[in-house]
């Protein structure tokens, strides 16, 4: 276990909280966050492993469900117990484990848990202060409850996809599972809300978290603008979505000699842009910067075309102009800033002993952020059954013979 950046004396924030994690795919980020805050997160998965484990990247592109990149990151700090949840005995085991835990995270299709006898109502009837957080694409009820979602479908219906991309081309989805992972952040937050509410009242709760809501939450400003002035925002490439001519510009990405830079003006002093890029004729365009965006691009591009991104950003930042480099993943791995902060960590997984991965989501002065490697499938089956349920070696051998556990 590594505790980062601070010598901390106190136990982690969620130490003593037990979480059962039944999620799949990028929804697993919720459990990762709670493990980071110190909860004991028990991942219940089948013997084939959570589908997350089947999704790369894999070293040399060879599939290894113990060592996929997404699994190593999103399951970091969890324990794994392997149970055949399709069997009645497996379902009973899961119920008994949940009976000894505080929080359940799940992302099955709405209604599935009811079919295996693990619905919130049925669990809460004997475990009255249980906190369950259910994640899904569209929510646990309503006309779209049984619709099928995916990242790109969720961002489509959530209004997010139409706002991303160039105006003259089809909309383009954001990288990877951006909204699903953000949904999992909402779920982790909901879990802590539930824990605090339970601290205050002793009551449990059931949270229904939907990816389409997370998409709308992410849009932020343009939603309020619509309510206020009826303007329906449209995708605007790398420019901001507020298109009034007097609005700030540049805030965009432009090519330079060796790649791209993010170029950004200064709300209080646009003239700094003319100090950075002198004698190219920018000054007359600043009265209505957004209205002159095409012309500003044209002038900037010429200036940028002879300079590399690190030089451009250095010159701009000396003037307090918030320009930054558009970094590639290779460049990020060499980045001196992340290295000095110890952000990328090696969790010494036996199958990936030299791999670096994102560490803390936050640093706290008195309580640690827990970084621990992801578990092998069923690595903690014996330990959890023994310590949590008192199931001894003989009984476990029996369950193994029947294929209930692995």
């Amino acid at each position: 276990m590594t505790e980062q950046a601070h010598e901390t004396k106190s136990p982690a924030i969620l130490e003593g909280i037990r979480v059962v994690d039944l999620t799949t795919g990028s929804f697993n980020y919720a459990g990762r966050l709670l493990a980071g805050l110190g909860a004991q997160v028990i991942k219940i998965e089948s013997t084939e492993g959570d589908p997350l484990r089947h999704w790369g990247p894999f070293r040399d592109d060879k599939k290894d469900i113990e060592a996929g990149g997404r699994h190593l990151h999103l399951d970091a700090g969890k324990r794994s117990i392997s149970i055949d949840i399709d069997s009645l005995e497996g379902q009973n085991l899961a119920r008994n484990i949940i009976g000894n835990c505080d929080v359940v995270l799940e992302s099955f299709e709405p209604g599935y848990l009811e079919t295996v006898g693990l619905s919130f109502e049925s669990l809460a009837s004997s475990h009255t202060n249980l906190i369950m957080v259910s994640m899904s694409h569209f929510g646990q009820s309503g006309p779209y409850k049984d619709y099928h979602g995916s990242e790109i479908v969720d961002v489509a219906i959530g209004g997010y996809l139409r706002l991303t991309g160039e105006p003259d081309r089809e909309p383009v989805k954001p990288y990877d599972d951006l909204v699903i992972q953000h949904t999992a952040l909402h779920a982790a937050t909901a879990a802590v809300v539930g824990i605090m509410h339970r601290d205050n009242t002793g009551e449990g709760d059931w949270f229904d978290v939907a990816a389409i809501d997370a998409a709308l939450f992410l849009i932020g400003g343009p939603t309020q603008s619509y309510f206020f002035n009826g303007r329906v925002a449209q995708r605007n490439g790398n420019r901001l979505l507020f298109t009034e001519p007097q609005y700030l510009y540049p805030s965009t990405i432009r090519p330079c000699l060796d790649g791209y830079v993010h170029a950004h003006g200064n709300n209080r002093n646009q003239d700094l842009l003319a100090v950075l890029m002198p004698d190219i004729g920018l000054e007359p365009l600043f009265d209505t910067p957004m209205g002159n965006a095409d012309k500003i691009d044209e002038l900037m591009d010429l200036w940028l075309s002879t300079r590399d991104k690190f030089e451009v950003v250095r010159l701009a930042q000396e003037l307090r102009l918030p320009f930054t480099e558009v970094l590639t993943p290779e460049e990020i791995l060499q980045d001196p800033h992340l290295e000095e902060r110890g952000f990328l960590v090696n969790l010494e997984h036996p199958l990936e002993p030299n791999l670096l991965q994102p560490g803390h989501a936050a640093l706290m002065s008195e309580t640690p952020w827990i970084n621990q490697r992801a578990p092998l499938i069923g690595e903690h089956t014996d330990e959890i059954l023994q310590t949590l349920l008192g199931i001894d070696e003989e009984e476990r051998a029996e369950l193994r013979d029947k294929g209930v556990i692995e």
Partner: protein
Amino acid sequence: MSAQALNKIRVLELTTAVAGPVAGCVLADMGAEVIKIESPGGRSLKSPGAPPPIEGAPDHPYNRTAFFNELHRGKKLLSLDLKHEDGKNIFLQLVENADVVMENFSPKIVGRLGIDYAELKKIKNDIICVSMPAFGKSGPYESRASYGPGIDAMSGLSHLTGFPDGNPGKPAQFYCDQNAGLTAALTVMGAVRHRNRTGQGQYIELAMLEGEMQLIAPALMDVMMNSRSPNRTGNRHDRFAPQGVYRCKGENEWVAITVRTDIEWQSLANLIGKPEIAKDNRFIDLDGRQIHHEDIDKLVENWTQTLTPQEAETVMQGAGIPAGALLNLNEAFTHPQFQHRNTLVHVEHPEMGTFPHTRTAWRSKNKNEGVAGPAPTFGNANKYVLSDLLNFSQEEQQKLKDLGIVSDAPLS
């Protein structure tokens, strides 16, 4: 919403831009009393594009801007000049009566104002302080200036968003800010719980870059595992094909479709009236469909172009295939699923009347969430703070106003 998670928790918010204010909104929605502190000279008196005042309400355009109202819903507003010695003293007295202080000033300004964690801890030993710097309070980029989209650029997100033959891209709006704001709310709640149990406050440092980079792990690992240079992949998916955004009937109308399995592919082939391609060996498995993705896209789009996005969505969903119309914001707000989830909450603003706000993505059985209320009018908590919390006399309050340290309207 009785006994909300943050009942009786008082948060002082000294934030600008987007991430800090978002954190404050979420904490307010969870029951905290959030007092935003704003400089008396910090806001323009005129606000083009603000909706008109309701009948009988004063005409204060500065209270009616969209951006301010979105980012500060549910909070109170104290207008206070922290640069003035008396203003700073009022702030410090308020800290004695607070649980959490949130700021996202640059490290230099916090030092200059003398309100860093070490100072505030002397005044209230169990205070929880939260900083939300762009890059963190150490390292070579500590003092770099940047807003959300600039952080997106440095996280790798811009490089990875867009088409392979196009420029790096910006996802919709301020991903990095909204993400950091919610992560801050999560850790603040955790820190409050820790303090409730142990009596110990603490300092939380939430670097926006590091919150965002939790998303970039797959690309970073592909570099380390395969010496590959991950690039943009447009609307494609490495495990599902076809996946894309397809043009529909009408101008700028689209549907998104994901085919997850070979069986879904065969269903799709039949639905689009091309049963022969279901049996075509080129498309029979994922690898084949990835190789021939462009050909498939053309076939799918020939079909979607004859339908509205909703029609295409309904047909695909009817066969169990994930599909969704690309909704405009106005369409999303009237969409039956958002309506069912009460995603929009209407709150009444004293000068504008009723407006909807969007809320966090969870609904709880105990109704332990919501939207705390409208954004504050300028200085609406001045009297509450000075009279009720700090017992300043009428004369003292008038003097503060005369000196411009506290103000009921922007002074700019």
